[in-house]
C-alpha cells in the first residue's frame, strides 16, 4: 500500500521563509507525482488569505505557489477549523481556484492516519 504523507503548514507567510519553503517542497513532491496531502493549521491558515500584495515588501506572492497546486494534481487541501476561528478568519476569505478546501475538526485524528509528516 502506498505511503500516505502529510505536509503540515503552520507558519504565516512572508515573516519567515518556512512558509514558502514548505510549499516549494510540496510542489517539488507533486511534480514527481508524489504530492503529500496538505493541512494548514495555526498561523499557516494565513497563507491562504485572499488579497495578498507582497510586492509592497519586495517579496513574491505565496499565492502563486498555492495556485499551482491543481496543475500538479493537488485539488484538495485541509484547513484546521479551530485555527480559523481563533484567528477570526472565515472561509469566505480563503479561496484558491481549482482547489477544494476541506475543514478539519479533529486535527489529531487526521494527522495520526498518515505514515509520514513533513513538519513545516
Amino acid at each position, binding site marked *: 500500500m502506498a505511503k500516505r504523507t502529510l505536509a503540515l503548514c*503552520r507558519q504565516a507567510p512572508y515573516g519567515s521563509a518556512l512558509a514558502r519553503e514548505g510549499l516549494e517542497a510540496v510542489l517539488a513532491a507533486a511534480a514527481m507525482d508524489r504530492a503529500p496531502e496538505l493541512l494548514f493549521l495555526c498561523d499557516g491558515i494565513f497563507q491562504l488569505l485572499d488579497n495578498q500584495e507582497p510586492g509592497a515588501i519586495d517579496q513574491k506572492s505565496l499565492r502563486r505557489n498555492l495556485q499551482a497546486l491543481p496543475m500538479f494534481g493537488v485539488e484538495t487541501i485541509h484547513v484546521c477549523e*479551530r485555527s480559523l476561528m481563533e484567528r477570526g478568519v472565515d472561509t469566505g476569505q480563503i479561496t484558491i481556484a481549482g482547489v477544494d478546501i476541506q475543514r478539519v475538526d479533529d*486535527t*489529531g485524528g487526521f*494527522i*495520526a492516519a*498518515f*505514515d509520514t509528516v513533513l*513538519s513545516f
Partner: protein
Amino acid sequence: MTLHIVSKSPYSSKALADCLGAFAEGDALLLIEDGIYALSGRMPESIAASPVYCLQADAEARGLPIPEKIEAIDDARWVELCTQHNPIVSWFK
C-alpha cells in the same frame, strides 16, 4: 499513533500549546531541548493521561528536576520511541 516532539519552552513559544491542540488519544509527547522547560511549573491537564517523555541529557543540561510522571530517556530510547510511533511530528516554533 503519533509521536509529537516539542523543542521550545511553553513560556516563550506556542509550540507546546499548538501541539496539544493536535493531540489524539494514544499519541505520545517527547520534550527535547528548550521543550524541557514545560517540566517547570504545571503540565497542562490535557495530557495528564498521555505518555510524556523528556530527554535526560536536555533536562540535566538545564538543571531541571524531572517530575515522577515523566519518563526521562536516553538517545537509544528516543530512537526506539520513533520506531514504535508513526507519524512523527516536530513542533519547533
